[in-house]
């Protein structure tokens, strides 16, 4: 018997007395079983939303940006709000897979695969918005620096918008590589148990001929570690650069030095909320409560209350600076356009405050952190709050800036702007449903790696040894 020691004070990460075989069985089961009716219902709703989104985008591309209600000063509205929202959601996946790997947090193994998938799908959704916001989307390739016949007139490398092009595309590529390199061994597991020819063939292609050789594992470990090391500053840089889109401008409410850390904390906050929403459904539907335990949910709720409070401090700092700077434009933006409840957009500011700052404080209580229903409800609330945050930042600042003569009319979206947003939900959930059906939603090899340290059965064996008397232990285990 081989045991590695972990304190009994720590909860098991895998419940039940599992063997390696059972881990494989449990995680591969949804792939090998026929999808349930609920899966079909969810999938078709997602596809319907996606179709609506495609039609909304079709209208925008055919008739132009005028299909949206953007106006003279509110040049960024729902589109960029949604862009920032989706990119932010993606950040939790990288945080779980990369930063928690560097911090040696064992609990990441239960949720990292799904969280990384979420990252990739969220970034795919995010990317749609700036691309279609260009209006003439067929010229989207103009953002790439390539020798061209227009001079060559190059892109502006000093512009945060171009930094965004590089940041988001790098982020997507690196996340995809990280995710897929982790999937290769698990695809091999699915391939080697496949019972139909088609399955064997497809997973055979997807697994790249993985055998499980020790040398390959050694390189795989090195690759994962370095990719984690690269992704960690990358994920911080991505939302920093997104915040630069605002912070480097001279618009009151955007021109703020605290934006980078404030945006990164907000991104992790909303991303973890989305992971909670997805994992609570996945663990229930696929009966994976043994792998995504209440302990996992609690750990994520701790991150939510931490980052939610950081975001809260940032809001208060902004309000303070709006007063302390004695800059009347800043003061007007923060204290009238935002914080005054009866200003045109006051409702969005207080919606944000209620959802992001007040309500997550419930997670200071252990009972609440470990309550599935509260967690699920809060995860939705937080994501609504984080959407409001981006809307507040973008719209209230643009709606009324310096000259009252250039103040715009009240901005509210058209059905096609809403449709575009709904469409990205469709895209996200279509991808996620397919992922949940055809991919191992939990990293099989990584669970096996932590099983003997943190599996319930093994922890119990260890507890028995701890209770033995010294003489008994020596008698049993010493080499005579």
């Amino acid at each position, binding site marked *: 018997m081989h045991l590695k020691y972990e304190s009994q004070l720590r909860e098991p990460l895998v419940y039940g007395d599992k*063997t*390696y*075989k059972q881990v*494989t069985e449990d995680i591969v089961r949804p792939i090998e079983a026929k999808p349930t009716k609920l899966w079909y219902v969810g999938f078709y709703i997602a596809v319907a939303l996606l179709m609506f989104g495609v039609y909304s985008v079709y209208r925008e591309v055919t008739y132009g940006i005028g299909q949206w209600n953007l106006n003279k000063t509110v040049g960024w509205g729902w589109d960029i709000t949604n862009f920032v929202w989706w990119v932010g959601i993606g950040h939790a996946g990288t945080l779980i897979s990369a930063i928690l790997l560097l911090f040696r947090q064992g609990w990441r193994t239960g949720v990292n695969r799904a969280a990384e998938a979420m990252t990739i799908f969220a970034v795919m959704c995010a990317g749609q918005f700036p691309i279609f916001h260009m209006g003439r989307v067929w010229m989207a390739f103009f953002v790439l*620096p390539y020798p061209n016949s227009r001079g*060559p*007139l*190059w892109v*502006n*490398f*000093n512009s*945060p918008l171009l*930094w965004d092009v*590089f*940041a988001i595309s*790098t982020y997507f*590529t690196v996340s995809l590589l*990280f995710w897929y*390199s982790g999937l*290769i*061994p698990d695809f*091999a*597991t699915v391939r*080697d*148990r*496949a*019972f139909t*020819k*088609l399955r*064997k*063939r497809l*997973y*055979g*292609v997807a697994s*790249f*001929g993985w*055998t*499980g*050789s*020790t*040398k390959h*594992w*050694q*390189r*795989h*470990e*090195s*690759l994962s*570690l*370095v*990719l984690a090391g*690269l992704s960690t*500053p*990358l994920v911080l*840089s991505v939302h920093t*650069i997104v915040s630069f889109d605002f912070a480097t401008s001279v618009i009151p409410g955007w021109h703020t030095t605290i934006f980078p850390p404030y945006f990164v904390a907000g991104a992790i906050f909303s991303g973890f909320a989305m992971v909670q929403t997805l994992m609570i459904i996945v663990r229930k539907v696929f009966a994976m409560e043994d792998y995504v335990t209440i302990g996992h949910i609690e750990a994520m709720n701790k991150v939510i209350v931490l980052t939610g409070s950081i975001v809260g401090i940032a809001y208060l700092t902004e309000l303070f600076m709006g007063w302390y700077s004695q800059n009347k434009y800043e003061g007007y933006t923060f204290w009238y356009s935002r914080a005054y409840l009866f200003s045109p957009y006051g409702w969005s500011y207080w919606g944000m405050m209620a959802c992001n700052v007040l309500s997550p404080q419930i997670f200071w209580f252990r009972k609440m952190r470990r309550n599935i229903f509260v967690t699920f409800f809060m995860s939705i609330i937080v994501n609504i709050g984080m959407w409001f945050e981006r809307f507040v930042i973008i719209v209230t600042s643009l709606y009324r800036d310096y000259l009252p003569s250039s103040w715009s009319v009240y901005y509210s979206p058209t059905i096609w702007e809403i449709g575009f947003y709904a469409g990205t939900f469709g895209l996200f959930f279509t991808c996620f449903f397919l992922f949940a059906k055809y991919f191992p939603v939990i990293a*099989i*090899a990584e669970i*096996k*790696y932590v099983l003997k340290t943190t599996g319930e059965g093994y922890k119990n064996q260890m507890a028995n040894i701890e209770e033995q008397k010294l003489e008994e232990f020596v008698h049993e285990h010493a080499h005579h």
Partner: protein
Amino acid sequence: MAKKKFVVGCFDDEAVLFPAVKKVRTAGYKIHDVYTPFAVHGLDHAMGLRETSLHTAGFIYGITGTATALSSISWIFTKDWPLNIGGKPHFALPAWIPIMFELTVLFAAVGMVLTFCYLCQLAPFVKKHHFHARATDDLFVMVIECTDKTNTDDLQAFLTSNGALETKVEVAEDGWWLGRYDKDEMPFEEKQIVAA
């Protein structure tokens, strides 16, 4: 590709595997490879494999990315088309840091993954010989390469005495070829041998 003769021993516990690896090596046999369902830490050292240099390659790719970004942007903005952006300096290094950083990460990540696939000979449609289908499930499969002098019966007995649950002799290709996994014998269930 030449076919070679191998002796295969299957273990179900890494704690049994480690001493077995040590004994097999001390006895002078050449371990071709050990196939495991997950990364068993320390197994590479036990087998006497050298450390991988993949991270060094990653570093080189990374600085290539930095250099590419810096040299391209500075050439474009100071030589090819010095664009006047609000009267700011043409050589605006601080403003280029984000893109230099992103390209560093991009080059390092893409380069490392491609190098990883090349070194491990992994690619879509690649097929290799699998000594045991459960090596990706719950068995640790030790494969020993035979020479002309190897007595396979002795070796199998030796493996069994060291905790192997199942042993066999196989003649197999040790490289890779383009192939499909559905050409394997089907269905899989019948092939499966339950380790006692």
